[in-house]
């Protein structure tokens, strides 16, 4: 979330699309209801299903799963052709005036530089024209045909309401009504908030779905504003924190891009990741990358990380390719993995194509499950009748199951979707012999360390020298760990302008990431959490809910990263002169000497407006990108069909088969055969959560099992009639990857859509059920889903695929 949960109450219009906030995040959704009650705000829901969010919406429009870019591209076209944009904002705070390389082209669904063999783009033409100083060239009149604004206008001129309606199945008048409602928030003192979740990410165009809406928000001038922003409503309680800690292959804690084989030396590595400003006077905050990375190495390796050994740069494993979850299972399926551990993760149920996952796990030598619950994955080898048809005697994987504690049995901090880090305290011991995650990881590590110390082995250095300063080595305390994450000075940190002035004394916790240094004098486990445990103590444990601004900022409750900032890009809430666009909802303003207001400025505090330091400080441009050169599948989002589409071609590019689905999406060769066609599988399926359950956890909790006891699928009345299915019947749903059986819920809430002259039925399939749990034993929904991922994030396409249905 660029903003935060409570801030939603400040909005004038809430759009829920690509998500179902009422159902997946009811307690956050309350702030939408609050905005409706207190601000007379409107709520609009666009979804393939009439969801629980839609139940309390002012307006609902149906959409075919996987066509959000067509819809939103149409909105962009509407805003531009009706001149409903926030001009000053667009001109000054986005890259609309930036001039793009003349070689940039878009031709029938493909951007310039496409390589069909590699399923990817050479992005060299997707770049700014630069002047002699290396700065990007701009045309502030926005008239140059090569400026982003004109290119964007041209790109989206194809997204006419007719074509949008034909592609999405959304009735044209519904589409236009929503365009009109959104357009109203182009007024400087009106904001719209966008609440999305996995309904946008879980597509082969997932990242671009979000980008399209981000562009709309920029055109309307809603970023950085109270009640605005683009808000990812994330899945797990601490998915934000774990993302920040970067438990994934391509980044190190604090989103520091991890080294690859191409980054032979530390210098090369740092040079590539330390950009130069693209416009004069910009903060270009990533220029601090070396400080963050060096401080991380000091936290990881302590005294072993020295200037002489490049702060252990070579100890950091280098990637030779993709190692995301899909890639890991593809490797496992190919027999390239020996061992695997799942910590509070149930991939058999939650990854796409369950059969492939089960087959892959069976090829492992050893599997370690660290979980509070008996997960489906932990019993992938066990025959559970029709729900998991395997022969245990043929599965040679050695499986360990280690009991972990739950939230109530440990102290520690969680980071919510609004980036607010909050501490919690242990209430009781876990059952039996269960242990905390830190303790389990420490036990594994210390045993390995002992073995390497005694017996030697491959490259023991990083293991033997991993900093382990914990008072009880077997039980690193959460307090010690958060202090390490937040960072401390190892030597006196002095003012760069005055070396005699000590800013932080050796041994003290740093007050924030600004104090981090690249000379080894600071250690910080995660720069964005810098200052969360300062000399003042554990700021995540603060519980002062006072809210003098009335905006819900509660700056003394917990700690929001970065720097306790609650609304990102908040400098953009004021005009060039520093005057708030909406004085009634002041987030940030220039007081004459400094930035002040009701948040921590996302700006150098003393950057006077005349210095022209632009609000998007994490971009070397200083402004937000309507044209993004870094996306894998195009600088402007384009509509592509889901990999399994009910249509024969992409209505936007009917003549180009290559542009039917995302030409840069992640597909493994071995999975090409696993896709089905509309001939055999005529219905669009989409998977989702229900409010009564949380993933595959609450099926183990009695109360939740009572509230939603059995697997079901939802179908519209028209399809039900065609198929002779009545509510309560058992039905069989098949995709090209397998089948499930479940109870049919027949509903008016799933409409048959008119798409490109074709009737398209949608089948909704909740995901929460499985063969382990207190709920009625059931199939795993992801038996059906395709193993194909987004071009940028590699997130699988759970939200749009093809199935067939019959009475079981």
């Amino acid at each position, binding site marked *: 979330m660029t903003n935060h949960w409570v801030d939603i109450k400040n909005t004038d219009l809430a759009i829920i699309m690509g998500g179902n906030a009422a159902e997946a995040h009811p307690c956050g959704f309350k702030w939408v209801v609050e905005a409706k009650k207190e601000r007379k705000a409107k709520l609009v829901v666009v979804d393939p299903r009439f969801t*629980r*969010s839609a139940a*309390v919406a002012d307006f609902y429009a149906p959409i075919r799963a996987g066509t959000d870019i067509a819809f939103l591209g149409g909105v962009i076209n509407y805003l531009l052709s009706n001149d409903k944009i926030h001009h000053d904002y667009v001109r000054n705070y986005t890259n609309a005036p930036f001039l793009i390389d003349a070689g940039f082209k878009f031709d029938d669904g493909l951007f310039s530089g496409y390589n069909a063999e590699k399923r990817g783009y050479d992005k060299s033409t997707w770049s700014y024209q630069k002047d002699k100083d290396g700065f990007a060239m701009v045309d502030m009149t926005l008239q140059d045909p090569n400026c982003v604004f004109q290119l964007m206008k041209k790109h989206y001129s194809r997204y006419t309401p007719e074509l949008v309606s034909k592609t999405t199945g959304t009735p044209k008048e519904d589409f236009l009504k929503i365009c009109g409602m959104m357009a109203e928030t182009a007024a400087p003192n009106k904001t719209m908030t966008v609440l999305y979740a996995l309904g946008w990410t879980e597509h082969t165009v997932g990242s671009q779905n979000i980008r399209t809406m981000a562009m709309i928000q920029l055109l309307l001038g809603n970023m950085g504003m109270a009640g605005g922003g683009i808000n990812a409503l994330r899945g797990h309680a601490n998915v934000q924190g774990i993302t920040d800690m970067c438990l994934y292959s391509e980044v190190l804690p604090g989103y520091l891009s991890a080294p690859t084989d191409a980054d032979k030396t530390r210098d090369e590595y740092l040079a590539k990741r330390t950009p130069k400003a693209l416009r004069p006077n910009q903060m270009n905050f990533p220029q601090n990358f070396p400080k963050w990375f060096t401080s991380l190495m000091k936290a990881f390796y302590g005294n072993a990380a020295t200037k002489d050994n490049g702060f252990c740069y070579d100890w950091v494993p280098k990637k030779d390719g993709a190692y995301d979850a899909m890639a890991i299972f593809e490797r496992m399926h190919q027999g390239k993995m020996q061992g695997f551990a799942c910590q509070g993760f149930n991939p058999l149920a939650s990854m796409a194509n369950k059969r492939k996952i089960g087959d892959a796990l069976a090829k492992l030598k050893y599997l370690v499950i660290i979980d509070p619950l008996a997960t489906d994955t932990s019993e992938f080898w066990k025959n559970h009748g029709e729900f998991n048809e395997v022969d245990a005697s043929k599965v040679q994987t050695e499986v360990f199951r280690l009991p972990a504690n739950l939230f109530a049995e440990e102290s520690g901090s969680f980071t919510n979707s609004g980036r607010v880090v909050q501490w919690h305290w242990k209430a009781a011991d876990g059952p039996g012999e269960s242990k905390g995650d830190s303790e389990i990881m420490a036990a594994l590590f210390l045993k390995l360390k002992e073995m390497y110390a005694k017996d030697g082995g491959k490259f023991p250095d990083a293991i033997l020298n991993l900093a382990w300063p914990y008072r009880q080595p077997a039980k690193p305390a959460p307090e010690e760990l958060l202090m390490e994450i937040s960072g401390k000075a190892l030597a006196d940190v002095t003012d760069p302008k005055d070396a005699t002035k000590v800013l932080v004394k050796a041994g003290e916790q740093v007050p924030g990431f600004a104090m981090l240094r690249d000379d080894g004098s600071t250690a910080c486990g995660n720069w964005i959490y810098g200052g969360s445990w300062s000399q003042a103590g554990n700021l995540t444990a603060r519980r002062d809910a006072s809210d003098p601004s009335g905006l819900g900022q509660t700056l003394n409750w917990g700690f929001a990263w970065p720097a306790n900032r609650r609304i990102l890009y908040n400098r953009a809430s004021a005009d060039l002169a520093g005057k708030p666009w909406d004085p009634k909802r002041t987030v940030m303003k220039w007081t004459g000497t400094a930035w002040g207001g009701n948040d921590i400025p996302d700006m150098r505090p003393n950057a006077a407006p005349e210095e022209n330091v632009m609000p998007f400080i994490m971009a070397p441009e200083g402004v937000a990108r309507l044209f993004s050169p870094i996306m894998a599948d195009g600088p402007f989002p384009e509509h592509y069909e889901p990999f399994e589409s009910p249509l024969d071609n992409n209505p936007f590019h009917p003549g180009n088969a290559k542009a039917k689905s995302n030409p840069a999406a992640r597909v493994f060769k071995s999975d090409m055969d696993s896709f089905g066609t509309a001939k055999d599988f005529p219905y669009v399926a989409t998977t989702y959560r229900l409010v009564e359950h949380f993933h595959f956890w609450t099926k183990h909790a009695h*109360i939740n099992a*009572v*509230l*939603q*006891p059995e697997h079901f699928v939802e179908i519209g009345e028209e399809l039900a009639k065609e198929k002779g299915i009545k509510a309560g019947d058992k039905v069989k749903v098949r995709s090209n990857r397998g089948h499930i059986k479940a109870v049919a*819920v027949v509903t008016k809430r799933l409409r048959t859509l008119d798409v490109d002259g074709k009737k398209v039925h949608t089948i909704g399939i909740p995901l929460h059920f499985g063969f382990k749990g*207190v709920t009625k034993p059931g199939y795993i929904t992801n038996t059906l889903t395709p193993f194909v991922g987004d071009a940028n994030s590699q997130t699988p396409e759970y939200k749009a695929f093809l199935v067939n249905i019959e009475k079981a």
Partner: protein
Amino acid sequence: MALQSLDIKQRSATTTPAPSVRQTTEVAKLIDVSACIGCKACQAACMEWNDIRDEVGINYGVYDNPVDLTAKSWTVMRFAEVEEGGRLQWLIRKDGCMHCADPGCLKACPAPGAIVQYANGVVDFHQENCIGCGYCVTGCPFNVPRISKDDGKAYKCSLCSDRVAVGQAPACAKACPTGAIQYGSKSDMKDYAAKRIGDLKERGFAKAGLYDPAGVGGTHVMYVLHHADRPELYNGLPADPGISPLVSLWKGMAKPLASLALGAVALGSLFHYVMKGPNEVSKESEREAEKEESQ
């Protein structure tokens, strides 16, 4: 421990008035159906707080689960899909005890103290006094009480009388994530409802209104409805509920009249005996009989 933690207004099967000199604030729960997303947090909170766990059922082809109130599910969400003018509305109503001012259950209950109405408006069942006859079910205009198969006693929403007694909101109201359940004094709830109804009218629901049916003397669980003119749209919420005339007859006039009638018969017999004397076999008859026998 005090004999009672809340002032009592009425007790079942009790003919004398309860101590009623003290005036306590009437409380109410307001269910703003227009803000309800049917998430069932209220159901979960109710089970959790009241230490009841219903059986894990099955899916009946609807979202409603459990599909009806039970002795272990004191509240359930009822979902109704209503299509009007081409636009779909998903009307979701939290069903459960309405805590009527004139409670049919209490009226019907034959067991003294099994059903109590507190002065704050809460109608509570006391299972230790309940004999399990089910008359409360018969008496309820909203079909709410349920007899447990485990212990044969009647159960229903207590408005969390244990929480209310210490000044807390009922568990469902506390949990409700969208604020669709509000709790407070009945007059505050009516004010709040008026505000919500105003908002709904502005949003095009011309018939929005408060459901506080006079037929049962008003309720301490009220609804804000978008279509107050047609409460039956909300999964059969009765438009004009009241205690059934049959129940009123049975537990009203019938009781004294029948008791009197029986008393009259008994006393009538007694006085008849006293006044007319026994009907003995006459001497004549005895003689005649003897005579005839000897013939």
